[in-house]
């Protein structure tokens, strides 16, 4: 799964010093704090972190989906070299479906419950590609076949499908217009492990055949390491570590990264006690990343910080 993408061409996505703030009546929270990353062509980039760390906010910022009270307060986002923050409404519309597509956790809320799956897919083609209905129907059938669903299912309503099938339909719709970047925010969190694995294998296969780039968000480190080429770990709006996924798994350098990996005990080998983060530990004033090994960037941890806890 980890054939490395070619590095010779320019990145598809370039995020530099991005900051996002939520403005409340009494205080302002910086949800994303001076975050920088790039995603190469055909690269799967993982963004790991716990709920509230800012990973979904960062992804929404890339699509410019943030609404009041959240606002981008600093930094730049470049997609294929263009400044995303300078796009007008029409350009944004094109960006969102045609160039960047998004898959969320809950397939049920991404699908219209009172429309058949077929009608929803046909809508994409008639609206964005101005295809005739009959042609759009053919394309819809091909699309379902692409994600291994019987085209007969075009006549089904979302509630008639299993959870896994619904998520496959959503993925099919996301890649319908052949976007260059697919953003997936916890795409399999609501699914059982057997279905999850099949969906992830499907995504990896689609990615290989269609060649798009992926921004993959999850809290599940094992899943992320399996799928991603490169990944970053986010904590309280900051990146604490970024490296090739295998390297990060084999040699995690930041204590928070170690705690996240330890949260998923191994299924083979000796049953050694693991420690997580001590209840209530907070990292504050996280410094900028430093390159500690080739391609492996880490935020230095102040000497004397007490981190590990939860007596084993």
């Amino acid at each position: 799964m980890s054939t490395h993408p070619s590095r010779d061409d320019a990145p598809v996505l370039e995020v530099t010093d991005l900051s996002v703030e939520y403005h409340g009546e009494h205080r302002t929270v910086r949800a994303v704090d001076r975050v920088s990353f790039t995603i190469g062509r055909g690269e799967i980039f993982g963004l790991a972190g716990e709920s509230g760390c800012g990973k979904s906010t960062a992804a929404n910022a890339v699509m410019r989906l943030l609404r009041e009270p959240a606002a981008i307060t600093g930094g730049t986002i470049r997609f294929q070299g263009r400044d995303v923050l300078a796009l007008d409404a029409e350009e944004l519309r094109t960006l969102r479906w045609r160039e960047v597509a998004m898959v969320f956790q809950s397939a049920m809320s991404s699908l219209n419950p009172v429309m058949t799956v077929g009608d929803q897919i046909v809508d994409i083609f008639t609206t964005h590609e101005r295809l005739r209905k009959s042609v759009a129907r053919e394309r819809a059938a091909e699309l379902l076949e692409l994600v291994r669903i019987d085209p007969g299912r075009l006549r089904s309503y979302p509630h008639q499908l299993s959870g896994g099938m619904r998520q496959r339909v959503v993925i099919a719709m996301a890649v319908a217009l052949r976007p260059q970047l697919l953003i997936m925010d916890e795409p399999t969190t609501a699914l059982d492990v057997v279905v999850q694995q099949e969906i992830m294998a499907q995504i990896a296969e689609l990615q290989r055949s269609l060649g798009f780039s992926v921004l993959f968000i999850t809290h599940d480190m094992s899943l992320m390491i399996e799928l991603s080429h490169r990944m970053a770990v986010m904590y309280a709006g900051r990146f604490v570590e970024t490296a090739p996924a295998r390297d990060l798994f084999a040699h995690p350098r930041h204590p928070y990264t170690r705690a996240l990996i330890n949260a998923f005990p191994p299924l083979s080998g000796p049953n050694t006690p693991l420690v997580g983060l001590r209840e209530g530990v907070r990292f504050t004033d996280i410094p900028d990343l430093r390159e500690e090994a080739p391609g492996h960037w880490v935020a230095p941890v102040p000497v004397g910080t007490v981190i590990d806890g939860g007596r084993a």
Partner: protein
Amino acid sequence: MSTAAPATSTRTDPPAAPDAVISLRGLSVDFPVGGLFSRTVVRALRSVDLDVERREIMALVGESGSGKSTIARCIARLEKPTAGQILVDGVDVLRSEPRRASRAYRRKVQMIFQDPFGSLNPAHRVHQFLERAARLHGRATGAEQMRELVEELMATVDLPAEMLESRAFELSGGQRQRVSIARALAVGPEVILADEPTSMLDVSVRIGVLNLMRRLRDERGISMLFITHDLASARYVADRTTVMFAGELVESGASMALMARPAHPYTQLLLSAVPDPSRAGSYDPAERARLRAAVLEADSCPFDGDPGPTCSRTEPVRHDVGPAADRHWVRCHLYRPAADVASRALAVDTVDPTDPAAR
């Protein structure tokens, strides 16, 4: 859907294991479906025999809908079984206290839920949760003794004593789950039923809660039934693991042995699907299809001809596997669970992956 008579009427139940705190015998639960006058039922549990022993953590793993939470809810007396026995210290509590659980029972068996946000009133202070539980079960007399008890409970679950004055809404998910555990401990239980206690917690604090569970077993001798969908957590904390599929038990044994040498195709299927960076890219559609078929329509059993029980297509016969110390058994591969229930649980939602054109 099933119209079969409760299996308990046609067989003799094995006696309760001598060292068991809780023994389930032939436990079945039917849920009515359809309209008011409909007589169709969904069999959520079918004739479950399970023992949780003293000082042991027994993990019950399976996918959503497998019936694992229904077992916990039956033991906690939140659900009324259609048939079967729940033996606690050898007494069938469904007979001795048929309508609802006695206070003595609730003192013995405590439950921790998945959602620490839903199980604690957000406006109440931590000491109130602990004191109420302790007082109700007569665990402390006088203010001094009570103060000692709650402080000791906080130390046990690794929370600072100052937090006794905090209100629940001020705590993180991990801290709340620790308070739920302290509240369960406040009544001095023998058994804790933990239904997915870590699945809603932030990942970085999950392992801490699992470590706490291990400590409660080792230091206080508390038994636990640990319900989880996560095989890795089960392997990490549980002495034994039991696998459920479509309302029935499929395989059980010492956790390490069971995960190292899964004997049932369903267990193999579950284990092969857990993300594991050390064997990335291992997904094999053909192997997957073979395992599914082996679960749903097996035609042979590798234990056929065993000196033990004879294979059966209709009775869930158990074959012993491996050294006796592992207490590892697997349901006969030949056994075919009710087709509709099983195939719903193992829905194949893609076109046949063995079809070469679809690869």
